[in-house]
Every structure is written in structure tokens, then in C-alpha cells.
């Protein structure tokens, strides 16, 4: 099974979610700025990397975890995956697309734009870290639902080509 976390730029929320999934970030407490910055892909990718499906690791159940940036067009990603899967005989049960972009708050948006869009890393990065920490629990909840679903053998196929995000308790 491939688990693909996606967000606008594939820089912050999806990378954080993938790190939580792989146990690189704690689920029982908020991470520190240093822990976030120690992630290999956190706030690192540029506009040329949009669309690159990057493997982050393999979880305890042997599922491969990926991150990808898809700008504000998740539907394109779903259509491509679904269509290419049909053409190349790849079953939709083989992958899960998890939209983390809807958990992004305005602080992360502004910080991400400054850091990645305008190259103002000194101003943007602290903002994006603050935003990530403030909504970290929501990301953890989302990842927990995915992991619980995988453990319980829940079928994700019906959601695979839609904006998939299980209910997150706020």
C-alpha cells in the first residue's frame, strides 16, 4: 500500500503528516522548531518540485509513505492517478491519497508564501513553524485515523479518487 500525503507545495503540512506517520515526530506532545527543521523536506522544495512524488519512508506495516505538492488543484492529482491506474492496471486499492492541504491555516499560508514563494526565508520560516505547531494536533488526528483505518483493514478505495480526509475532531 502506498500512502500519499499531499498539500499545496509539498513543503509543510504534508511533510509534517508523513513524519508523524513514520514516527519521526511525536504524537503525544507538540514538536519543537528544531524537530520540524530537522525533517529532510520541511520548507525545502521549490516550484520546480511541484508534482514530484517523493518517498519519505516505510511505516511499521510495510506501507510506503510519499509526499507531493499539487498547488490548489487536488482534482488534477486524483484524475491523473485514477486515469493512469486504469490504463496501466494499477488497482485504486493500492494507494491512498490523503489531502492535508485543508488543515493548513493562514499563518502557514503566509509563511509558506514568503519562504517558498518570495524567498524570504528569515521571515517566512518562523511563521510557518508557528502555524504548523498551532495546528499540529489536527494533523496528528488525521494521521491517527489513517493508521487506525490501515490497522483495522478498512477499505479506502472508495475515497481514493476524491478529496480524502476523514473527519477531524477540532
Amino acid at each position, binding site marked *: 500500500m*502506498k500512502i500519499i500525503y499531499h498539500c499545496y507545495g509539498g513543503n509543510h503540512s504534508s511533510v509534517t503528516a508523513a513524519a508523524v506517520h513514520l514516527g519521526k515526530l511525536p504524537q503525544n506532545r507538540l514538536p519543537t522548531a528544531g524537530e520540524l527543521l530537522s525533517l529532510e523536506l520541511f520548507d525545502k522544495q521549490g*516550484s*520546480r*518540485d*511541484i*508534482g*514530484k*512524488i*517523493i*518517498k519519505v519512508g516505510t511505516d511499521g506495516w510495510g506501507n*510506503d509513505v*510519499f509526499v*507531493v505538492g*499539487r*498547488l490548489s*488543484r487536488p*482534482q*488534477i*492529482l*486524483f*484524475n*491523473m*492517478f*485514477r*486515469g*493512469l491506474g*486504469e*490504463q*496501466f492496471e*494499477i488497482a485504486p486499492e*493500492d*494507494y491512498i491519497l490523503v489531502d492535508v492541504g485543508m488543515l493548513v491555516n493562514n499563518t502557514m499560508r503566509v509563511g509558506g508564501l514568503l519562504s517558498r514563494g518570495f524567498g524570504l526565508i528569515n521571515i517566512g520560516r518562523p511563521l510557518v513553524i508557528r502555524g504548523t505547531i498551532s495546528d499540529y494536533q489536527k494533523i496528528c488526528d488525521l494521521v491517527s485515523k489513517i493508521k487506525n483505518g490501515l490497522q483495522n483493514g478498512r477499505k479506502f478505495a472508495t475515497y481514493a479518487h476524491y478529496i480524502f480526509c476523514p473527519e477531524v475532531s477540532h
Partner: protein
Amino acid sequence: MKTKIFYCTSPYPLAPLVAGVLTGRLPSVFDQKTFRDFACANNFSLYPQGKPVCLGISPTGEKVMAISTGNASINPDNIINGFLTMYGLGSNHYSLVKVTCRERFWLLLGRFMMAIPFLNNPGRLVIEWRIKKIYPDLVETLRS
């Protein structure tokens, strides 16, 4: 069978046009009636962005597909390569051809006009006018 995938990021789906020329569904010289029939048959006015469309077999025996992502600069080549590489499919299974777009402004204008009911037909004419102009370049993509 190897698959040839045409992709573009133009406001109007140009990749299916090039793929149509390769598979013989469209002539190599612009013909208005054939173009209109082809556009209607493939639902170009409501084209699902990013959805791969299979347009048949090329004369060299390759399966021909086309992907158009609308006006989004989402790097479709990255997604296609990433997705297929994830499942162990490499360059011996598929090849990618980028269809470049020069008339972005006019095609975008035509699309906007087509979205407004009473400007639908003028919008269609604007698109046909520009497609006719760039058609030789699109056909040239197959030769390069």
C-alpha cells in the same frame, strides 16, 4: 505495448489534438468540421483536467494517451513519472511528449467566453481561430 503520453498545461486541451493527429483521427492540415467533430466527441468544452484520455494506437503500434491539466502549472510530467515509477514502470513502458502552447492568452480568453452562455459561440470561434493558427506547430510536435 508501449504507451506514448502527450501532455500539456494549456487552457485548451491541445495534447489530445496532437494525439488525434498521430492516431489519424485528425488530418495533418486543419479542417474545421473534423476539428469540431473531434472536440465534441471528446467533450473539450468540459474537459476533465488531468484525466488521461486514450485515443487509440499509433502507426508504430504504441498506445496513445493525452493529458491536459488546464491552465495549472502543476508539472504533469513530475506526477506521471512519479506515479508510474512508484509502481516500477519505467521508460521502456511509456514515453512522455510535451505539447507547448504559444497562444495561451487567446485560448484562455476563448475558454472564459465559452463559460458565459451568450458568448459561447464567439468563444468557440476565438479558439478555432487560434487553433487554426497554431495547428502546423502542433503537427510539428510529432515530427520533432
